[in-house]
């Protein structure tokens, strides 16, 4: 371990120290305000270190590689985690029971997401995934008097455990073929003469790769809730406390995608027709299933769950197209990173607003009727939600449009006409339910019995996110250059 190693790990260390301090503070003095304060300071410290190491490119032990791209992802995640903290405080402050540990778990889950983002080793991949997962089980079940949230937690626990097992088995098979768990060695292992993936490679190697990639695809698809592995998503999103729905839909999924992206690019998995075909099928089914099932939802959390299924279907197009564009598939990084960042900020606005409504009424308010008349009750926040929904629909001036532009560009250059037509059909269907939400915000406020009285930090957070979404949509050049130069 050298100084650079410690510097590279400083964000993770900051979070670990923060978590320990939180443990001690909760042990001796239970005070929700203090806990929130320490959590925010922890995240700010982590952000400070992350900004400090934006240019660092350093392999710290075989487990973690700190590079500008993953640092960018981490910044996004920690920023969102910080905003989740503000939202959670409002959500928890009037609820009975011991609420302090909530923040501890948020810090741990965020730490897991950063480990995942930095992972260059299958072991750290699993480590980050499980650290995040275990904290999330607790978070989902946090309002443990609530049947819905218990059901959601158990569902997530069982299914997530099963998918982790599939993932582990897949990794084990990969190890059996290549003899390594380190991402770069996977590539050379697969390309070695005795494996030499291709039609003339030995029968057993081809079978093991087929089985292994199927298991890994299934495991990762579950975590990203790609159809047909999406069944858990709407139930878990609906049952979770609103701030955690946001965490699940943004940071948790984003971190898994970031890690998958790295595995895909470094391992050059786009050279495997099996995997690319699998991804294509997953993408098509996800776009169609996600959009079609979202049409009739009355619960906004469920709606966002289905919409997130569709969005990760769109994102896969970048991965699929990357292989045909450049020999090493590196072109997948810029579009998907941009899309992901835009998606995360956008979705956090929507879930944050639901959390704000739920906190104002001290119950779970996520029905269409709960946002009725928002335009007249609270125009500013209604505008934020509208921007978020329009961004999800891919209307210009928002981050969502630039993301779509990237996906279109990738698809056209790779000649993926089938996927593009599915994308257009999916977006067309998508507009319907996003507009439905906007429409219900414009209806008569008297039909809604829920109030909305957000505290200042929540309002400021939501507005900040909205400005970010608009900034990414109006002036995308700086981030584009950052991503382009660092890949």
């Amino acid at each position: 371990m050298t100084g650079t190693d410690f510097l590279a790990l400083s964000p993770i260390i900051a979070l670990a120290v923060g978590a320990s301090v939180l443990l001690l503070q909760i042990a001796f003095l239970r005070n929700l305000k203090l806990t929130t304060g320490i959590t925010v300071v922890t995240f700010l410290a982590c952000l400070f270190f992350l900004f400090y190491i934006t240019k660092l490119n350093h392999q710290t032990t075989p487990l973690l590689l700190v590079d500008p791209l993953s640092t960018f992802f981490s910044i996004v995640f920690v920023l969102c985690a910080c905003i989740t903290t503000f939202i959670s405080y409002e959500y928890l402050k009037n609820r009975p029971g011991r609420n302090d540990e909530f923040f501890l778990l948020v810090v741990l889950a965020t730490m897991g997401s950063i480990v995942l983002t930095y992972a260059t080793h299958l072991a750290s991949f699993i480590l980050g995934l499980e650290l995040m997962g275990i904290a999330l089980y607790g978070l989902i079940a946090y309002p443990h008097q609530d049947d819905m949230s218990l059901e959601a937690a158990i569902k997530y626990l069982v299914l997530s455990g099963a998918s982790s097992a599939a993932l582990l088995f897949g990794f084990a098979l990969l190890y059996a073929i290549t003899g390594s768990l380190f991402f770069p060695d996977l590539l050379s292992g697969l390309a070695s003469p005795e494996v030499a993936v291709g039609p003339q490679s030995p029968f057993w190697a081809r079978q093991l790769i087929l089985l292994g990639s199927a298991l890994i695809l299934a495991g990762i698809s579950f975590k990203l809730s790609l159809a047909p592995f999406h069944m858990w998503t709407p139930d878990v999103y609906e049952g979770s406390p609103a701030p955690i729905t946001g965490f699940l839909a943004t940071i948790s999924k984003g971190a898994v995608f970031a890690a998958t992206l790295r595995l895909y690019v470094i391992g050059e998995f786009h050279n495997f027709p099996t995997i690319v075909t699998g991804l294509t099928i997953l993408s098509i089914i996800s776009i169609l299933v996600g959009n079609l099932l979202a049409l009739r939802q009355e619960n906004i959390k469920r709606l966002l769950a289905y919409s997130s299924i569709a969005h990760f279907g769109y994102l896969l197009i970048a991965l699929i197209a990357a292989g045909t564009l450049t020999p090493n598939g590196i072109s997948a990084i810029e579009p998907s990173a941009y899309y992901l960042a835009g998606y995360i900020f956008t979705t956090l606005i929507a879930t944050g607003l639901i959390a704000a409504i739920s906190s104002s009424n001290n119950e779970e308010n996520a029905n269409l009727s709960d946002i009725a008349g928002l335009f007249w009750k609270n125009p500013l926040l209604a505008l934020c939600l509208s921007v978020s929904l329009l961004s999800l629909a891919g209307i210009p001036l928002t981050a969502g449009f630039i993301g779509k532009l990237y996906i279109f560009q990738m698809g056209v250059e790779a000649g993926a006409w089938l996927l593009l037509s599915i994308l257009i059909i999916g977006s067309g269907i998508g507009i319907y339910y996003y507009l439905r939400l906007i429409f219900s915000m414009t209806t008569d406020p008297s039909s809604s019995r829920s109030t909305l009285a957000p505290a200042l930090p929540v309002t400021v957070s939501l507005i900040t996110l909205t400005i970010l979404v608009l900034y990414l949509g109006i002036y995308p050049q700086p981030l584009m250059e950052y991503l382009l130069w660092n890949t």
Partner: protein
Amino acid sequence: MENLAAEQSILPVFVFFGAILLLVATMLGIASVLGERKQTKTTDLPYESGIIAVGSSQVRLSVDFFLIAIFFVIFDLETVFIFAWAIAFFELGWHGYLAVVVFILILTIALIYEWKSGALNWGVKSQTARKETS
């Protein structure tokens, strides 16, 4: 040629695996085909020398038992890591020592937390919790 070698090295494993499957299937299959079947009123009862069950089998266990079980797992796993370090003590040197100190420090913090939040108080915790919420 190397491929062949690799294939051969893994072949015995498959043979072994297949043999196990075959053996188990044979044992179960023969028993079910040749075995004697008798349906009397004692068929579903435990074996003669066992004790006949009383009451419902679905009793509620005190949640404290699970807590103890979980603690056992946690503290047991911790020793696994420390053992692994102890065996390679001299090879790891000061780096390893520092790592284990940090590890134990975090464990201690967790222990303090558990202690303070009443997880170690046998049978009392549920009452204090009830008092707090009411």
